[in-house]
């Protein structure tokens, strides 16, 4: 087996909750070459659960204990977790390009099991996306040379984006949405104006031109919204979603061929055993997709 960045995996799985793990186990049983992205804690949601009463076979198990059992299962099957945050996945036609910072991984099929962590978008945020609202300041900055921009930052990393923009824009506003940001960070460039009020709406005509607060507003040419967990739409551009959920059929197939999704990210109920079941369905259908491809290419 070739190991390294140049290999193309059969199945890439994003997420190490019950859906992702179950997908990984089922794909491994069918001898597929897989890569599983996640973290060593598996799922923060599970670890925090005091008691789980509806997981078949385990009555009154704690989240921590269930996590350990999951881990043991992975170890027994020699499945390792690649601890990397995935920023974007691009459907390239016959493969998926999975981006983590500057690194790229390739796979023939994809299973999304990222869970839901839904930050409700601001009013106007989605409406003006690409019309003055963006999610990557460093990408689009040159389009805002000499213009007025606002950064709505949900994490500390957003300060860097604000600094980057302030070198190009004529005026940069920074609107912190996280606790620590409320006291002005010393890393923030002097020219940046910090607004410690909650924004309620992004407004505009053809293009976004205002951010509204409870009692005030600012005029801007562009707004960047910087968050930790990107929505499924931002993670996999072009995928069909319904609110916070990815649209799938009964085979866990999404609107993009070769791409499957399972667990909380496809909808309610948010339940561990449902997620595990869907992970299995996704893996089995990814395998049959791979088999069909092999027959076609023969």
């Amino acid at each position, binding site marked *: 087996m070739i190991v390294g960045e140049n290999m193309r995996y059969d199945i890439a799985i994003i997420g190490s909750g019950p859906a992702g793990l179950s997908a990984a186990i089922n794909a491994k049983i069918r001898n597929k070459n897989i890569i599983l992205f996640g973290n060593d804690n598996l799922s923060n949601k599970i670890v925090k659960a005091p008691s789980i009463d509806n997981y078949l076979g385990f009555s009154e198990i704690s989240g921590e204990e269930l996590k350990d059992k999951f881990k043991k299962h992975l170890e027994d099957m020699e499945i390792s977790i690649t601890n990397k945050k995935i920023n*974007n996945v*691009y*459907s*390239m*036609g016959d493969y998926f*390009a999975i*981006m983590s910072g500057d690194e790229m991984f390739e796979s023939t099929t994809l299973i999304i099991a990222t869970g839901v962590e839904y930050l409700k978008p601001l009013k106007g945020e989605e409406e003006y*996306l*690409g*019309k*003055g609202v*963006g999610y990557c300041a460093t*990408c*689009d900055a*040159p*389009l805002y040379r000499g213009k007025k921009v606002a950064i709505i930052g949900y994490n500390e990393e957003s300060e860097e984006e604000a600094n980057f923009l302030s070198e190009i824009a004529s005026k940069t506003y920074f609107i912190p949405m996280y606790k620590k940001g409320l006291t002005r960070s010393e890393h923030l460039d002097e020219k940046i104006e910090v607004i410690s009020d909650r924004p309620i709406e992004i407004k505009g005509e*053809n*293009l976004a031109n205002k951010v509204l607060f409870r009692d005030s507003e600012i005029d801007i040419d*562009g707004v960047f919204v910087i968050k930790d967990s990107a929505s499924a739409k931002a993670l996999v*551009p*072009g995928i069909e979603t319904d609110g916070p959920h990815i649209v799938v059929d009964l085979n866990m197939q999404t609107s*993009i*061929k070769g791409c499957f999704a399972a667990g909380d990210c496809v909808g309610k109920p948010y339940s561990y055993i449902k997620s595990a079941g869907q992970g299995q369905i996704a893996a089995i259908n990814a395998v049959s997709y791979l088999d069909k491809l092999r027959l076609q290419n023969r």
Partner: protein
Amino acid sequence: MSKILATSKEFNDYIENGVSVIDFFATWCGPCKMLAPVFDEASSEMSEAKFAKVDIDQNLEIATEFNVTTVPTMIIFKDGKKVDSMVGFMPKEKIIEKVKQYL
């Protein structure tokens, strides 16, 4: 490789007749690089529409005229008029599906 339209005149002549799809891109933009081969493939599968690109650093005025605020942005023109746009990376099937609506 899809043709790069280098001047406003070239751009205007190109979109004047029929359905054309213009990819507004930048050389430094990651998603633009990923879109390039997908855009070329869509182009080779659709003889009914024309596909070309505009480098926003070379032709910022065209990008501004059509309100491009994010790269990549693909704009569909029909007989010189903007009829639709797609912001960000898109899989080939989605691009083709969208363009077909205007043929």
